[in-house]
């Protein structure tokens, strides 16, 4: 089961290493990790996606809490959460296929960032699944490179 942990940490040197080290030490693979500052410049938010059973996620959450620089951890409930990821895809495309690729991008409400004679670079924002879907459709054209940010997420509603 995938979990999205939203972790508020003090914006101090070494915090990322401590958090990442803890996951690997306790035998977890991090699927994706996104870090950025919050509305408070002293505090950063890490959004960590991990694949885990219920029990071990509890243990790793408790261990995370023990890190002095970790302020708050929320195990986001998928149903009450909006999660997004941003990806940049460089796709092979020449004059013959350009229109088709651009059409696909349009369907997905993706932006065209760059066009060269042989490639098109597309920016897409959306759920993990949406990005995967576009990638699948573009595969026959030849995907040269994909860069993904990793998931970020926020709870719905007023909280």
């Amino acid at each position, binding site marked *: 089961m995938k979990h999205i942990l939203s972790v508020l940490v003090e914006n101090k*040197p070494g915090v990322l290493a401590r958090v990442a080290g803890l996951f690997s030490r306790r035998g977890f693979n991090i699927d994706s990790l996104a870090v950025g500052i919050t509305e408070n410049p002293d505090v950063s938010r890490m959004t960590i996606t991990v694949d885990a059973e219920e029990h071990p996620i509890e*243990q790793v959450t408790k261990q995370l809490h023990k890190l*002095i620089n970790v302020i708050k951890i929320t195990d986001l409930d998928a149903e009450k959460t909006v999660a997004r990821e941003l990806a940049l895809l460089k796709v092979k495309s020449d004059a013959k296929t350009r229109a088709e690729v651009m059409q696909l991008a349009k369907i997905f409400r993706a932006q065209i960032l760059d066009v060269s004679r042989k490639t098109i670079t597309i920016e897409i924002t959306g759920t993990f699944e949406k990005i995967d879907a576009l990638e699948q459709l573009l595969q026959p054209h030849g995907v040269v490179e994909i860069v993904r940010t990793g998931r970020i997420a926020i709870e719905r509603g007023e909280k």
Partner: protein
Amino acid sequence: MKGSEAIIESLKAAGVEVVFGLPGGMVIPLYDALYDSDLKHFLVRHEQGAAHMADGYARATGRTGVCIATSGPGATNLVTGIANAYMDSTPMVAITGQARSDLIGTDAFQEADITGITEPIVKHSYLIKNPNDISRIFKEAFYIASTGRPGPVLIDIPADMQLAEIDYRPAGKIDLPGYKPTLKGHKKQIISAAKAIAAAEKPVFYAGGGMIIAGAEKELLAIAKLMKIPVTTTLMGLGCFPEDNDLSLGMLGMHGTGYANYAVTHSDLLIGVGARFDDRVTGKLETFARHAKKIHIDMDPAEISKNIAIDIPIVGDAKDVLAGILAELKAMKREPKKTAPWLDQVIAWKKKHPLHYKDEKGSIMPQFVIEEVNRITKSNAILCTDVGQHQMWSALFYTHTKPRHWISSGGLGTMGFGFPAAIGAKVGCPDKTVIDIAGDGSFQMNIQELATAVCYDIPVVVCILNNGFLGMVRQWQELFWSKRYSETAISCQPDFAAVAEAYGALGMTITKKKDVGDAIRTAIKSKRPAVLDFRVKPEENVFPMVPAGKSIDEMIGGHKT
């Protein structure tokens, strides 16, 4: 003021009186400031010794131990000592020098990423990048090390930070938004626990090292007496409940007493306090206390339900929580007689499966040496050990009655811990008799600290149970590996008494049973550092023993035949 002087001021502000360490290139400024201060510094012969001394000092006194090493190899030599303190939750502040901040990351001379290396084995660590942070960082470090579940904190200080001229200001209020240990137990949980205790017919207390840290022995004794509940302790918990009390079951687990292991297995309520359901205690997890409802009181929420599902978890300080439970129980209608048949059963187990060893004519039995130490010191000494057979015999055949009188490497199981820890304990408690029980294998891992003990005249008595083997591994090889003693026979040993004399300590070799008591008495009376080399029976085993992966009631050996 220089950064190095600010470090000294910060140490004094934290109430530090003694430090253990060894200078080197990147801590010369710090040692220069130390030169003018009234802090008492003990120069060790190996940095590992400094870390273990700080650890032993902390466990004996309850105060935070401090050790200092230089950058690179000095810092890496502390690593085992820091890991040991982490596993056994000892409050410690380790100070390391570091290459100049402009050289960090360039593989400079004696540069090692010590905050990176120690990351998994510290409670927290700091690399000082601004000398004006010194007083704040030291205040935080001591606060973190000594509160909540204690542990080691490392402060890495580049040489230029020590040299910098700063405007020293004492640290202000501590502001750590991510660190707020829960001290008070949840009232509702305390009431649930009290009700479960009052309802239990076969309750057992299972008390660990957290009891000693919390200083909760009076509360434990009061509840045990009020409700007539037997108490077993872990290796780390020895001394938190007086073993001369009828309700004591001694230690449980892999080398626990038969009656402790039977009582836990057959209990209907297990009350774990400051213990962490470690694999050496539980044996096979599925069968551990399988009939029992489980209460777990611990400072560290991550320990609750880590290994075993808990029915009534209570996060908080053991002293506070036990006091709360005691108050509830006193206010409750209760029948202490309810546990009477259970206590009869426990007494029957005690009679049927007492701790036992077979005396052999012409040999000094290792257990006998421990019994003699117990008799001569009237169970009043601070006893330190390394890891292995000598440790288990010391746990089993000595009567542990007081907290902070048993200093042993529990979680990490470090050979070479006991002797420097004993030196640290004696520094902290100069009026106590401090005995280090060692193995002939482990003593050599920090034998060089004899120089420290002699130089500062720290009269610790080392009793080597010399069996010419790495004994515990040999025991496993005997029992589970067809007696194939691969690399465990270490009969090629130095003359320990002569080594001790060469260092300027008292050295004695004891080969006859009748001389054991006199040797111990002479060593204690001499008020000198002393090494007693007891030539004990070589192939004696520690029993009872629960083979790895078995249920703790499936013990082998140790029964009277």
